[in-house]
């Protein structure tokens, strides 16, 4: 079936080139048929790429080792769940996933807009098909997932990289790629609107949900990536765990700014140039994020991806075209992008939204500069220098404090102009809460970090503003409808999903910021080396190394992993708080330059974290066993098995198994000192809870309003506007 998969991609590539031409031709008056044909090209590509993707998935699930990518990224012993996910662990598979998701979202948006935006859609279709052409070109010419092995297919593959064997592998890449590909939709329509000179609110209304979807999907991807890093990969701390994840944060930040500022264009006809620029920046940054994962140009856990200089140059070319084209279009249409109104007062929602946008763009710039600094420094000085968490903290902390305050102020102000009296009345309770938060924090022993105290105050202010909004809204709803309070709350949110979903997002941001501030400022970290029976003290806890552990995990009769770990007991004030187990997994490698026994200790390694998570604090432990004392016996094993090549395979395998079991038992009997990393961090669980609240609020915002309610609202306002119309004319 590899031939069929490859043929489908080639046909899709040819159709995408045709579609670009047809769409551009179809944009001219009287050529509507070609625009229609281009739209159908997108559907055809979606069908072809979906079929190709299904063929590749089928090859992974059935362990079809005639496919090169299956041999190098899966094995018969890989669990079914991970076989399915292994398809996008490779360069070529992930590019196919990108093309698949892009074709699906493109089909959805072109179906929704088939009878709307008739002058914009053909150009948007051409841009979407341009992206498809790029990715299909990579799949056809440089990174085919359908390459087959020469000669007979091997009976076994290398297996999935151990670092990727985590449930998040099924969801984290798909979420991030969905975010990236969804960002292509508003980008394409912004380009279409600029070319067609249709810079009104319609293209924004048509693609707003896609921008929100991109924001939501990127948020889910970032959350899953952070959680994965925290529990599996060995948490490196904020800003240090992976530059590729930082890169995914860039379009998320600009998308956050965008979903605020488009409201100003919809309501006031303002910030058109800003909105179109943010849309184009978000789309371009999505490609930059994809480029970072695919190229491997930054040191990253995602370096499991092969270095791909050829791909790096192609992506660089695409990004340059996107930047240059976007700038040229915005400059050439600047007269059309002029605002229809002006900001009337600084004390208005649009003014605060604009300030919030500026802060978000500043955050984007800081993250961009910090993430890309190794490349920038290498280009300028010839040496790679990385910027660490202190550098990020210097800029990010004050900016996020300002952002939290603005996120509280914005929603409680009215559009156009808020009066001083209303503002004072609306801010009294939130300001009191901010003061109370500082007092409580100081009473609980805070005060060592000014940044954290200010953040707690800002977040309490924000939560106060959001809580007040829900309370007042619910009360107003109850007064209008006579419903009970809980029913009135649900009705309020149902009827104003965009507004109250957004408020929930703000509340989640406050919880997340509190978690980050507390876990950064009041974290206790030690990296002791302990003998069995020794105790280390950290953050008021005594962690005792009880005993070493050594186990061997087998699957399908093959050794999958050797686990060397430790059992720990955590006490506080002499009382046992919890018992934890942490271990390091050693996966065998096929590297034939290593000895037969060494191969079982020199391959990929993973950390299993021992974690006690709680609402107040997390106790996080990880072990790094010292295997050096085992080296002599491992080398001896290498020599013995190297000299015994004539043994029958079954006997050799049995003896090798016994030898490895013996080495593991030896580690348990005579454990060398092990190095640990113990972290006690307050309020980490607030980060995860806050992120879930953000996603829940985002889901409410994106959910379409009930059809009946919309019709009722339309009918009501039509009647009112009609009455007004009659009164005006009479």
């Amino acid at each position, binding site marked *: 079936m590899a031939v069929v998969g490859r043929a489908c991609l080639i046909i899709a590539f040819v159709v995408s080139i045709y579609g670009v031409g047809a769409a551009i031709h179809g944009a001219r008056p009287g050529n509507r048929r070609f625009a229609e044909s281009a739209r159908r090209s997108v559907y055809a590509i979606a069908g072809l790429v979906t079929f190709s993707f299904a063929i590749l998935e089928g090859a992974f699930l059935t362990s079809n080792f005639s496919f090169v990518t299956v041999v190098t990224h899966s094995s018969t012993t890989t669990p079914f769940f991970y076989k399915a996910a292994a398809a996008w662990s490779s360069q070529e598979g992930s590019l196919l996933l990108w093309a698949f998701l892009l074709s699906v979202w493109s089909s959805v948006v072109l179906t929704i807009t088939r009878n709307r935006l008739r002058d914009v859609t053909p150009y948007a279709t051409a841009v979407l098909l341009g992206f498809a052409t790029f990715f299909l070109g990579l799949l056809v010419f440089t990174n085919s997932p359908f390459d087959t092995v020469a000669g007979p297919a091997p009976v076994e593959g290398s297996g999935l990289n151990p670092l990727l064997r985590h449930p998040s592998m099924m969801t984290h890449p798909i979420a991030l790629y969905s975010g990236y590909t969804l960002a292509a939709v508003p980008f394409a329509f912004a380009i279409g609107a600029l070319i067609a000179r249709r810079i009104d609110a319609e293209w924004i*209304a048509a693609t707003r949900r896609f921008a929100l979807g991109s924001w939501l999907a990127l948020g889910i991807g970032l959350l899953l990536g952070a959680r994965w890093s925290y529990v599996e990969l060995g948490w490196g701390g904020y800003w240090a765990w992976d530059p590729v994840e930082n890169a995914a944060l860039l379009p998320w930040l600009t998308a956050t700014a965008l979903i605020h500022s488009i409201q100003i264009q919809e309501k006031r006809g303002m910030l058109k140039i800003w909105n179109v620029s943010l849309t184009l920046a978000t789309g371009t940054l999505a490609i930059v994020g994809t480029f970072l994962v695919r190229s491997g140009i930054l040191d990253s856990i995602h370096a499991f991806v092969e270095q791909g200089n050829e791909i790096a140059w192609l992506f660089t070319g695409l990004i340059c075209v996107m930047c240059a084209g976007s700038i040229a279009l915005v400059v050439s249409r600047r007269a059309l992008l002029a605002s229809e109104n002006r900001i009337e007062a600084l004390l208005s929602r649009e003014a605060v939204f604009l300030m919030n946008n500026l802060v978000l763009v500043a955050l984007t710039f800081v993250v961009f500069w910090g993430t890309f600094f190794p490349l920038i420094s290498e280009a300028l000085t010839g040496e790679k220098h990385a910027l660490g968490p202190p550098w990020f903290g210097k800029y990010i902390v004050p900016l996020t404090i300002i952002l939290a305050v603005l996120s509280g102020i914005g929603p409680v102000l009215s559009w156009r102009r808020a009066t001083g009296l209303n503002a004072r009345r609306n801010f009294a309770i939130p300001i009191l809460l901010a003061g109370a938060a500082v007092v409580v924090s100081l009473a609980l022993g805070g005060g060592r970090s000014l940044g954290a105290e200010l953040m707690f105050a800002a977040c309490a202010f924000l939560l106060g503003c959001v809580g007040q909004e829900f309370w007042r809204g619910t009360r107003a709803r109850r007064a209008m409808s006579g419903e009970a309070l809980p029913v009135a709350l649900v009705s309020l949110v149902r009827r104003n999903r965009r507004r109250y979903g957004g408020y929930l997002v703000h509340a989640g941001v406050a919880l997340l910021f509190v978690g980050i501030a507390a876990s950064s400022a009041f974290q206790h970290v030690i990296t002791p080396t302990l003998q069995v029976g020794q105790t280390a003290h950290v953050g008021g806890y005594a962690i005792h190394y009880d005993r070493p552990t050594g186990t061997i995990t087998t699957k399908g009769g093959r050794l999958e992993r050797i686990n060397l770990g430790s059992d720990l007991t955590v006490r506080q004030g002499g009382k046992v708080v919890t018992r934890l187990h942490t271990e390091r997994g050693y996966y065998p490698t096929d590297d034939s330059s290593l000895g037969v026994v060494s191969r079982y200790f020199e391959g990929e390694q993973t950390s299993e974290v021992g974690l006690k998570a709680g609402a107040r604090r997390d106790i996080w432990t990880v072990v790094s066993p010292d295997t050096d004392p085992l080296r002599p016996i491992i080398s001896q094993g290498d020599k013995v098995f190297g000299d015994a090549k004539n043994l029958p395979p079954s006997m050799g395998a049995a003896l090798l198994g016994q030898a490895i079991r013996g080495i593991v038992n030896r580690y348990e009997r005579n454990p060398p000192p092990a190095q640990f990393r113990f972290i006690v961090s307050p309020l980490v669980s607030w980060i995860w809870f806050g992120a879930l609240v953000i996603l829940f609020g985002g889901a409410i915002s994106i959910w379409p309003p009930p059809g009946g309610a919309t019709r009722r609202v339309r009918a009501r306002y039509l009647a*009112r506007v009609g009455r007004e119309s009659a009164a005006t004319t009479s």
Partner: protein
Amino acid sequence: MEVILIILALAVVVWVVSGPLRRAERPEAASAARRAGLQAAKEAKYREIRDAELDWRTGKLSERDYREQDRRLRAEAVEILRELDELD
């Protein structure tokens, strides 16, 4: 089998993509784009009216400011409806 599948895929794609080209061009109303833009503006204006009411009910706008804003927004909505009527 593989060759048949490829030919089948190719045939389906050609049939789907060329469908509109086999039909005659349908004339389009020149005002379609203008109408779509006005519809979007109308929806946005209704939302603005509704938001202003909620702002008033939740204490962000004084009664006087709300009445003034509501009157202005409805006048703008009327203008949009008039323009839509003119296209009919």
